[in-house]
Structure formats: structure tokens, C-alpha cells
């Protein structure tokens, strides 16, 4: 608790107020104290009101003072203890073939625990969605099995209540967005005042309050994704599966949603397992505990396991220098160079990334971008 309070104070001191508000909301939810949560929601509303006011460049000074007073109040709270991760779902050699298609998903095994974020990456048409739909119970397995450890003798309906799946193309909503959120909360047993509180919390947490009284037609596709996440989270699933959730989001929103998902997975109030697919490799890798690379229906790479077997270094660079200049710079080193039209990928088994970079810079090769992708799934996209 103390650590999280200090973290929030630090955000406020550095004017990362938006982040501070979100963490504050999470922290208050985890305390389980309704009055604190109501105060935090109010505080968040004030902050968003300041944000909307274009004439105010920075938040007023009393906003920060209020925040510190509030944080001091939280100081006395003990909060709920974080529970040790438990296995939620165990997928054992799951495989799927489509009739009338050459594609098949080869056996894949995976365990998902509470607080886990699993990223599934891969090129289009390689089986990411198939794997997710198998895990969500939407596709019947040809072989293998999936067990849900927290459910005893579940039927398919129980499983689908337990597992929430957000497809890439979100089904249309009808009616007011707020009504939909209240409905989702109440159908999962969150009723009465608790229902109102949780919907208000979710709206503030995902910064959706201004859109709550609109309808589906009146919001952008990015907000539709956010609303869908809010709706699903209000249903309190144990496992959340998202297929390409970043597809309709801008760069900032992508980062925000991913970090929010990570924090929500690790929430004390309702920890859950999250599995998501995306093309945004680096963003996903930053927040995921495990990343699976699916290629042609097979799991080609898994962080934490296969990455230990990796040898050498892979560097991705962007430069205006020609291929000949790069070759000349790295002539003395044993480096394999690939070019995909945009980036150069440098593979070396004898040299470190720093050595490669130094060599290039010393040879006056101007770099506009570089990234060490040795432990990233990105390296497999170039081969």
C-alpha cells in the first residue's frame, strides 16, 4: 500500500496527473472502502473537468493539495492482501482444424494464472484468433483439452460466464452506453448502490464519463473498444480474452489501455488472467508476462521458455545510409544483414548490441532508430 501511495505522489509531483488519477482509482478500489472509492471518483471527475477546460493549462494548485490530503487519508488504510497467483485455465495440446481449409492450429499448451497477461502475436492468418476462440469456448477442439481450475464440473454456459471474449469486430450495442454498463454489472450480480458505484468507477477509470449518455452511433471505434472493455470488466470475468484490442486505438490510447489492462489483471479487488492478440509487438511485450508467437498455426516462440535458448544478438535499425555503407562499417564483424524495405536487421552471434551500435556510429552511419530485438518476437518476423 505504502509503495503504491509513494508511486502516486511521485506521479503528482512530476505532473503525471492522468496516471496518478488512474492509479488512485485502482488503489481505492483495492482498499474495498466504498467511501474512499466515492471520493476518488469525485477527485477523478474534477481532474477530467480541468482537462476539458482549455483555458487552464495546468491543474490548479489546490488539486494537488487535495490529492496529498487524500493520499494521507489512504496512508492509514491496510488494504486487502494480494493473493498468490492461482491457475485459472490449463490448455493442454489444444489443436483445431477447419473443414474445407488447409489451415490448422497445431497443438499448443498454455497455463494462465490470476494476474497473468499473455500476449499472442503473429502475422495475419496464422492462427491467433483461432487459439483465442478455442480458449473462449467458441470453437470445438479437435484434440487436447481445456480445464478451468476454479470451476467444478462446469457446463459450457458456466465457462462462457467465466471467460469473457472481446472480438476484433465488436458487436453493436443498442441503447445508452451507461445503461449497457449498468446492465452488464447487474447480470453478474453487482446490484443496487454497488452497481452505480462500479459503473461510475469504470467510466472514470477508462475516462468514458463524457460519453456515457451517448449511443453506439455517436462514438468513435476507439471508444467502442474502450466501452466494450468497460462492459466486460463489469461482468467480472476470471479470464479476459481480447482479439486485437489495439486495432482501433491511437498510439496514446494503445499505451494507456495496455497498462490499464496490466493493472487490472493484477488488481487486488478482482485479479484475473488476460490473454490478448495484437500486431503491436513492442507494446504487448512491454506489459505481457508471457508472449506467444504463432506462425502457421504453431507456437514458434514463447518468452520465458524458448528465449533462454536464444544465442547471439538481433538489432533493428533505421538509417538513411546505404546498404554498402552499412556493409562497409560492419565488414570486420561477422554480422548477417537483412533489409525489409524499412528496417535493417543485424544478426550477430559474436558481438553485443552495444558493440554493433558503436561500430556503426564510429563509421559515421547516422541512425534514426534502433532497437535490440534479441528477446523480442519481432526477430521472427524478419526471417
Amino acid at each position, binding site marked *: 500500500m505504502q509503495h503504491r501511495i509513494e508511486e502516486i505522489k511521485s506521479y503528482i509531483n512530476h505532473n503525471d496527473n492522468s496516471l496518478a488519477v488512474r492509479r488512485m482509482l485502482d488503489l481505492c478500489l483495492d482498499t474495498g472502502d466504498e467511501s474512499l472509492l466515492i471520493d476518488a471518483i469525485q477527485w477523478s471527475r474534477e481532474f477530467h473537468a480541468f482537462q476539458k477546460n482549455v483555458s487552464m493549462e495546468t491543474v490548479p494548485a489546490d488539486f494537488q493539495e487535495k490529492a496529498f490530503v487524500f493520499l494521507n487519508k489512504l496512508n492509514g488504510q491496510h488494504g486487502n492482501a494480494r493473493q498468490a497467483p492461482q491457475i485459472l485455465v490449463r490448455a493442454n495440446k489444444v489443436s483445431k482444424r477447419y473443414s474445407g481449409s488447409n489451415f490448422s492450429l497445431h497443438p499448443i499448451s498454455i497455463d494462465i494464472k490470476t494476474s497473468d497477461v499473455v500476449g499472442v502475436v503473429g502475422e495475419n492468418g496464422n492462427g491467433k484468433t483461432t487459439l483465442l476462440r478455442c480458449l473462449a469456448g467458441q470453437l*470445438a477442439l479437435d484434440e487436447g483439452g481445456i480445464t478451468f481450475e476454479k470451476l467444478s464440473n462446469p457446463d459450457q454456459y458456466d465457462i462462457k460466464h467465466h471467460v469473457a471474449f472481446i472480438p476484433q469486430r465488436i458487436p453493436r450495442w443498442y441503447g445508452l452506453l451507461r445503461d449497457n454498463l449498468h446492465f452488464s454489472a*447487474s447480470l453478474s450480480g453487482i*446490484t443496487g448502490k454497488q452497481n452505480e458505484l462500479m459503473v461510475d468507477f469504470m467510466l472514470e477509470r477508462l475516462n468514458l464519463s463524457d460519453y456515457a449518455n451517448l449511443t453506439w452511433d455517436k462514438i468513435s471505434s476507439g471508444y467502442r473498444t474502450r466501452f466494450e472493455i468497460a462492459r466486460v470488466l463489469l461482468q467480472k470475468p476470471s479470464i479476459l480474452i481480447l482479439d486485437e484490442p489495439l486495432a482501433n486505438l491511437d498510439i496514446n490510447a494503445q499505451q494507456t489501455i495496455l497498462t490499464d489492462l496490466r493493472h487490472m489483471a493484477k488488481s487486488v479487488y478482482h485479479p484475473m488472467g488476460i490473454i490478448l492478440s495484437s500486431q503491436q509487438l513492442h507494446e504487448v511485450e512491454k506489459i505481457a508476462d508471457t508472449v506467444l508467437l504463432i506462425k502457421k498455426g504453431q507456437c514458434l516462440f514463447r518468452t520465458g521458455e524458448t528465449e533462454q535458448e536464444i544465442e547471439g544478438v538481433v538489432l533493428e535499425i533505421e538509417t538513411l545510409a546505404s546498404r554498402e555503407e552499412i556493409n562497409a562499417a560492419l565488414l570486420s564483424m561477422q554480422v548477417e544483414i537483412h533489409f525489409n524495405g524499412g528496417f535493417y536487421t543485424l544478426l550477430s552471434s559474436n558481438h553485443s548490441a552495444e558493440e554493433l551500435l558503436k561500430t556503426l556510429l564510429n563509421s559515421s552511419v547516422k541512425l534514426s532508430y534502433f532497437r535490440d530485438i534479441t528477446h523480442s518476437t519481432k526477430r521472427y518476423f524478419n526471417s
Partner: protein
Amino acid sequence: MSTQKRLFCPAFINRIDDYLLKNAPEIWSARTHLVLYYGLIFMSVLAFLSFIVPDDPRSNSGVAFWIVFVSLISIIGLVLWLMFLLRFNVFKRYGLTSASNRLRTWLLYFTSVGILVFFCYVPPIVETIRANSAYSDNELAVDLNKMNSLICQLSYDSLPHDWSNDTVIVVNSTEGRYENVEVIGDVEEVTTSAAVMIDSAVSNYKPAFRLMDTTEFTSKKLGCDSLLKLNDSVYVFSECPSYEFITDPGLSNYSDVKMLSSRDLYYQIIQHYTKKEVSPLVQEMEVLTKKYKYYSNEDYNYYTETEYNNGNYIQARFFTDNITRSIENIYERKHSFAPNQLEWQIRVWFYITFCISLLVFNFRHSTKKAFFLSILTSVLLSILTGLILAFSSGNESSMFGSYLFYFALFAFFSFGTFQNKTRNIVSGISINIFSWMLYFLPLLLTSMYYEGQQSAYNELVNPDYSFDYETMKLHLFYAEIIGLIIFIIAIPTLLHRFYRRWYALPEE
């Protein structure tokens, strides 16, 4: 609270709506509270309009036009309700739900549809209330008797005074067949054929007679004006001329006043006729004519000097057809919800409501594809069965048999859902059709039983069988009740499990 604006929606309805949304999503999503509220408002407005619209109870009822108009509004209401209903579905969102919720959901749909269908009953109810407040049954009966009496008084010279006679030979019909017909008593026994018997009877009883079996005799005896027994078999029925110029549409069933028959009028006025002063009688008749004659009712005034006959003369002088029509109209309006009418009125309401609510229930628990294919399958099966029965000269038993076969088939596939690994479309169709057929099963079995009895009787397998229409009606009514009970029990037990299992199965 939701900020959605609804027309004519007071705060308390919004509060109820908000409460249900946050506490009882299945009840909220059924929108029955809104249907009830708006339904009551609409029915009140409709009732008010029906009250204020000029409508004379003596005129032909215009309620059919009201019903058509209100039916269209009911359909619009139904569409609007469905638009709101289909927005939210706890079942398809895999929310926390139980078997009892399935039953509650259907009951809510039934209530909502029932309210919408009930719109069509408001104008007839108002019409009945208006007619009842304008005329009482006793008043009508007294006036009707009075008018017939006055017509007899005023037209004595123009009326026939002689009774017609009909001599009949009563023959025994208990054997049920003409081959064994016997003349009752010891006048003459005829054991051959009806033709021989007639010839024999003709030679014995002249000039006018006819054969009458005991059943007809008993029935006619109850309603005849006079009966003279010549011997054990031969009777003379005497019939009084008709003096009921304004006929009783059925007031005798509801009025405390005895309705005067032609015979009563004969005995009271014609038989011992005493001439009275005409002008007060005419005046009295004019008052009553004014009370009941309605300008737009047809008069059937065919009377001309060249075409004189008694009926037309009375009609033309006293507007009897017009008044009869007026009294019939008043009577129909007053008793359109009488017990014998109410029975089928309730049935029409119930079956329309039941069928629509069942279809909505299926749609809400099934996929669009399975739902519409179920309807298509039902239609195709009906056509196919009809064709097979037509080409094979099938009878009602064949039809009932095919229904039972289909029921067993769809039940089998519905139970097969528990073995399926994926959401099989055949199972989905079967569950829907099974749920449609379930209610009608007891009705079918009862009909089959009576059909069997009737066939056995016709084929002389069971000549002792006597067809009791009232008992059959009662048994069919019991079958309807049992069907409903079975259906209500099946929703939380069978249908809930079928749909829960089937809908949640992997799609591919």
C-alpha cells in the same frame, strides 16, 4: 439514473426502471413495466375515446372497425416493444441466470404481449358498458312484450287466428337404424324397412301426417304450442300463428320478465279479443317506436297495395324489422361478454398471446438462423404432411399420428443436444419446434380419443357410444389447462436445460 427521455414518463416509472436495471436485469430487459404503464395509458385514452365517440346502441356495431384500427396500433406497440426487448439479453450474455428465471422471463413476455393484445378488447368492453348503462334487460323485455301486444291489438283484423295442425306418427329411434324401426305401442308394428312402414302408415292415418322419431318428438314436444295425443303413436302438433313481430334475440336468458310467445299473445289478446280505444294504443306504440326505431337501420318496407301480404303490412306500419334490428343490436352489444361469448373471447386472447410470447421466448434463447429455420421447417412439414394425407386419403387419425411422430422426432433430437459437441442447427430447430408442440400434446391426445370413439361408433364397433358434445368440450378444456401446466413445468426443467446447453456449445 439513466437520462434517456421517454414521452409521458413520470419520475416514478423512471425510478422503477432504474431500480430494475440495477437490481433485476432480466425483469428490466423484458420491459414489462413500460408496456404495463404505456398500455394502461393507451387503454385509458382508447376507453375515453370509445366513450365520447357518438355511438347509438341501436345502430349496427362499428366495433369491428375499432378492432382493426386498434389491432394495427397493437402491432406497432408489439414492434416497439420488440425493438426495446431485443437490445438486452441476459441469457445470451451468459449472465447469472437460473431455471426459474426462464419461467419468469416467459411469464413477463406473456404479460407484455397479453397487454398489447388486450388493446383490441377495450372498444368492445366500452361498447358493452355503454349499452348496459343505456338499456336494462328487463326494460328491453317489457318493451318488446308491450310492442308485440300493441301490434296484436292494433292489427287484430289483419292477423291470422287459426292454428295449423301437424299429425305425426312417432317411431322408435333408440336402435339408431331405420332397418329396425318400430311404431311405438300396439297400433302397428313395422319391422321391415322405412319405406314399407311409410306405405303402411299412410294407409292407416290420413289425411296428413308424417313420421317422427322419438328424439325429434321429445324435442318438439318441449317447444310446441299444443299437443294432442290420438293414441300411443299418433300425435297432433298444433302451432299458433306467429305474433312475435318483434323477435326476442335471447332476452329470456337474462331478463326476469317472461317473454311473451305467440301462444301467450294469442291467449292474452287474440283468443278473447276486446276492442279498445285505438288512439292511446297508437300513441303508446309511437312512443316505443320512437325509442327503438333507428334511422339508419333498414326498414324492409316492401308493402304496396298490389303486393299486399300480412307480414309486409305489419312491417310497414310498425317498423318491426327496424325495431327488431335495434333490439338485436342492443342485445349483442350488451351481451358480447356473456359467459358463452367470453369463453371464446378469452381463447382468442390466450392463443394469440401464448403463440407470440412463445415465439419471442424462442427467439431470445435461440440463434436467428435456428429460429427462422424452425419456422421454415414447420411450414414445410405442414405442407408435406398435408400432401401425404391428401394423396393417401388420410383421415384425422393419420393427421394426429403424424403430429405424434413429429413430436417424438423433435423430442429425440432435442435430447440429443446433451450429446452434441458443437451448436448443432438440427438440435436448435428441434428444441424450438418441440417447445411449440408441447402445449398442444394433451389437446391432441384428447382429440385422438374422441376421434377414435367417433370412428368406432360410425363403424358399429362401439354402438353403445353416445357422443356427448359437452363432455368433449369439457375434456378439451381440461387438456388446454393440462397443456399449459406441462408447458409451464417444462420451461424451467426441460427447455431451460436444452437452451442453456445448446446455446453455450462451441459454434464450430
